[in-house]
């Protein structure tokens, strides 16, 4: 690790001001940042510890939604009764990720900021445009089994590893930000993470110095919510492919549908193509298969991850069937 100075922030505005200098980084749980600092992939000169800011609360909103403070722990959020009962897809997604120890330490804001686990990103002897713009991408033409099949570029085929973000995308969450000078704004979660394009080293649409203060969920959408994660191990591993689906069925017809994929792209992948192919159609496997084909129509395999295309389709079909049946059963 490179040497750094450290301060603990007690005030959000002061934290933002203090971090608005070259080489400064926010730290909260540190479960991704410290890992990267040990490998000298991240080399901050100054750490501003925001873990004790009064941003841990989970509070109900007048419109029936929920605000989750950026410093709420992943574990507390997943276990919160309101999240479990009204946004179960979010609880399921959080619980499917990492380990108990990591979920206790990791913050909601930090989860949104976590970086890819591409092995070439991690190997500082390998070419990586994310770490070192312009040197190339060793994953293209390399061992790319876990890499992206959608939205990638010739500069980067890395995936975003967050399960939570996939659920948030399906729920149409917004991310609240505080900037230098006290400015606040919110960004739709779908606009928070970027595709790689020719700037894979720029992963979010945060403006310089901005800090995440919370995540806002609208009132729960209708239907049954489910998060399904497919991976080599039964636990404690990132997704090869995951699906967040929210489906409602009325008299055998799909009345509403939200679909988002994880493990397939540089950001969580909301699929309006799948949703359009589901709305108003019969809740049958033929429909789900058509939606899957629509969702993955532009998918591109890179050699070792070609299996992900069919895997994503089958996972979507299975997940939609589960959600539709569960919703129909609940509604009687």
């Amino acid at each position, binding site marked *: 690790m490179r*040497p750094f100075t450290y301060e*603990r922030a007690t005030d959000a505005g002061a934290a933002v001001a203090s971090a608005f200098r070259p080489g400064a980084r926010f730290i909260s749980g*540190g479960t991704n940042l410290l890992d990267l600092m040990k490998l000298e992939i991240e080399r901050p000169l100054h750490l501003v510890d925001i873990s004790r800011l009064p941003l841990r609360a989970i509070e109900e909103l007048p419109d029936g939604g929920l605000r989750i403070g950026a410093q709420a722990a992943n574990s507390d959020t997943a*276990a919160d009764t309101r999240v479990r009962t009204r946004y179960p897809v979010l609880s399921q997604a959080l619980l499917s990720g990492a380990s*108990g120890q990591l979920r206790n330490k990791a913050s909601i804001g930090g989860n949104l900021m976590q970086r890819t686990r591409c092995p070439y990103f991690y190997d500082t002897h390998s070419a990586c445009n994310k770490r070192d713009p312009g040197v190339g991408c060793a994953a293209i033409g390399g061992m790319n089994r876990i890499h992206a099949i959608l939205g990638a570029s010739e500069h980067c085929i890395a995936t975003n590893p967050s399960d939570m973000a996939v659920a948030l995308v399906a729920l149409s969450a917004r991310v609240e930000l505080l900037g230098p000078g006290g400015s606040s704004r919110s960004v739709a979660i779908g606009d928070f993470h970027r595709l790689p394009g020719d700037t894979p080293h720029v992963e979010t649409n945060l403006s310089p110095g901005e800090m995440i203060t919370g995540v806002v969920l609208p009132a729960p959408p209708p239907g049954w919510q489910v998060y399904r994660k497919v991976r080599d191990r039964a636990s*404690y591993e990132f997704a090869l492919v995951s699906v967040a689906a929210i489906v409602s069925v009325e008299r055998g017809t799909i009345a509403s549908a939200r679909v988002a994929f994880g493990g397939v792209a540089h950001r969580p992948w909301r699929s309006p193509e799948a949703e359009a192919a589901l709305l108003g159609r019969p809740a049958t496997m033929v429909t789900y298969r058509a939606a899957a084909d629509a969702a993955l129509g532009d998918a591109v395999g890179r050699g070792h991850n070609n299996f992900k295309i069919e895997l994503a389709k089958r996972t979507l079909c299975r997940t939609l069937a589960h959600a539709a049946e569960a919703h129909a059963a609940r509604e009687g």
Partner: protein
Amino acid sequence: MQLKTEERPRPPATPDQPPTMLARLRVNGADNFVELDTRTTLLDALREHLHLTGTKKGCDHGQCAACTVLVNGRRINACLSLAVMHEGDEIVTIEGLGSPEALHPLQAAFVACDGFQCGYCTAGQICSAVGMLAEAKADWPSHATADVSAPTIALTDAEIRERMSGNICRCAAYPNIVAAIREVAEGGRA
């Protein structure tokens, strides 16, 4: 004496000395004041500076959980935390859970159920299990829970395995680790 460590970052003694800070670490009920390089992980502070070597370094990257300790009653990986971040926290290590003369119920269960071979992961397993049982008692759901909205959780073997999935054992003592945890969870060694 009130020491506000966050107000006392020490500039380097010479330009090429890394920054240090005075940290107050409250471990197993006792306060310790240590001057630490800011880069010192909680794990290294416990082992190298406080000489509490019960907590082990397995991977140093948060992947094996041999370094599990309890902070304010919650299990974390000490390797992925900075010591200077723990001002005011109550830290409990394996040394604080029990002693040879007075074993913690989980320590006794691990012995009775033959829950280890080389013993390297064991301190982390036990600290993790203590934290896990508290989470289960608080009715936290897990990835193994069929319905996360259910208000109460039954701690089945499948639940124990999922909740302990962060802790690796290369000797594969898993079946007996689960048995030891189940025994304590069911009150066999209260």
